[in-house]
């Protein structure tokens, strides 16, 4: 029994080896087309329909796949190989089959402002050389960028032009001009993008809103007013419109140590105006005065019955003319005394 099993095992091993060796070679009617770049094998052989419909179609498909894969692997082995870290690696060539696009093709971008203008004027793009001969350094340097040929910023001497202020910092002026150019370039680039994507860019805080509030309308009016070549200097006001004095965000104050005398004068003028605005006739005081006079007169009338007649003639007292609300304070001696004011005869 053991000998039988040993024989069986040996025979089996022999059969397996033979199968393996046989498996490398595959017979096909038509040769396969290979694209080793994509690891693609294209089999144009006919498939027997009967075999597909058979019960044993799984086995048929399995063997078909195995044969084709074997042929592909044979093809890969034909490629140049190299050894990387003790692993044999085959170098795949470039793929020959074209695969379709994964995503849809990009739409053409609308031309930028410059491109529109160039097309209009017929300006062609001139190809410029990357390197320019730098006389100063006597070598070829790039046209722009790091270590460029004519670098403005590296200049250590700037002549002051004739019509410029001698105290002006020319270096700072140059830097500022560059910053402004960079900012303007960036702004134009963003505007181009906005135009391309049809995004509405609000100009100066005027984002389009369906219902504008009073403040927003006023702001829009102001901006429209200064949107002329002379920045609104010669725009007339509407009949009841007032020119807004502080249009900027920053409030402007008088200088800390200005002209003291003019400041004083302004304050005095302000006081004068305030005085003139105060009513000259203080109504309550006038009413009180009138009431007091009437009380006096009625008291005198009552006394008339008892007192002498001549007293009436001596009634002329000092008339204290009170002008408006500026009552000068008089200090009475005691609390309970009534004011001894005698009015002149009316």
């Amino acid at each position: 029994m053991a000998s039988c099993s040993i024989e069986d095992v040996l025979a089996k091993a022999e059969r397996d080896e033979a199968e393996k060796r046989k498996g490398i070679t595959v017979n096909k009617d038509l040769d396969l087309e290979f694209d080793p770049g994509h690891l693609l094998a294209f089999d144009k052989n006919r498939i027997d329909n009967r075999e597909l419909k058979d019960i044993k179609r799984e086995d048929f498909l399995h063997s078909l796949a195995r044969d084709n894969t074997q042929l592909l692997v044979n093809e890969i082995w034909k490629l140049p190989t190299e050894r990387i870290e003790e692993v044999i690696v085959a170098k795949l060539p470039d793929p020959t089959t074209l695969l379709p696009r994964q995503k849809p093709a990009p739409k053409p971008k609308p031309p930028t402002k410059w491109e529109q203008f160039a097309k209009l004027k017929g300006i062609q793009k001139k190809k410029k050389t990357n390197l320019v001969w730098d006389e100063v350094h006597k070598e070829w340097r790039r046209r722009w960028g790091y270590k460029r040929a004519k670098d403005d910023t590296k200049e250590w001497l700037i002549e002051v032009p004739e019509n410029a202020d001698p105290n002006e910092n020319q270096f700072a002026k140059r830097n500022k001009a560059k910053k402004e150019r960079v900012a303007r370039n960036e702004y134009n680039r963003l505007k181009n993008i906005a135009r391309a994507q049809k995004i509405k860019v609000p100009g100066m805080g005027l984002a389009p809103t369906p219902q504008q509030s009073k403040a927003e309308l006023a702001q829009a009016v102001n901006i429209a007013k200064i949107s002329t070549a002379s920045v609104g200097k010669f725009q007339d006001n509407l009949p009841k419109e007032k020119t807004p004095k502080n249009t900027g965000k920053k409030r402007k104050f008088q200088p800390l140590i200005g002209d003291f005398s003019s400041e004083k004068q302004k304050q005095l003028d302000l006081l004068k105006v305030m005085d003139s605005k105060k009513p000259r006739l203080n109504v309550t005081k006038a009413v009180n005065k009138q009431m007091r006079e009437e009380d006096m007169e009625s008291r005198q009338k009552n006394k008339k019955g008892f007192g002498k007649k001549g007293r009436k003639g001596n009634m002329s007292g000092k008339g204290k003319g009170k002008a408006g609300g500026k009552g000068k304070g008089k200090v009475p001696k005691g609390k309970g005394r009534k004011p001894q004011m005698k009015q002149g005869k009316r």
Partner: protein
Amino acid sequence: MRPLTDEETKAMFEKLSKYIGENIKLLIDRPDGTYCFRLHNDRVYYMSEKILKLATNISRDKLVSVGTCFGKFTKTHKFRLHITALDFLAPYAKFKVWVKPGSEQSFVYGNHITKSGLGRITENTAQYQGVVVYSMSDVPLGFGVAAKTTQECRRVDPMSIVVFHQADIGEYIRSEDTLT
């Protein structure tokens, strides 16, 4: 620190004129030197130009106070007069109120003045007129607003308020931190 704008000056003068009337001119136009008002951290300071020029050497965040503080502008831009202005209000006051020795303490502690504590009052004081409060020995104690006219003061009962308290010298101790 900056000078006051027109609106701020107007608000301040209106408040001051309630207490000293047209004598504000004497504050602005002084024979013994140029004095000016400046605003710093919402407070109005009154100083001579010499002091002002010295104060410009101090940075804004380090400057605490200059000259005398007259008052401050609240968040809603109303002007509020402080007790520190008393030295300038007292000599020019138009309407004065004298307080009896008994209720001096009550006033200095922040209470209103009742008729029982009233010693004297200037003639012809209108209602809600700004007044300066003195002790019987003519020491200025603070200022307030007359609750009743002089005439009415004579007639009302002793417990009713005649002067509303606005500021008193006790505030120097009570609100030490906020006075600057």
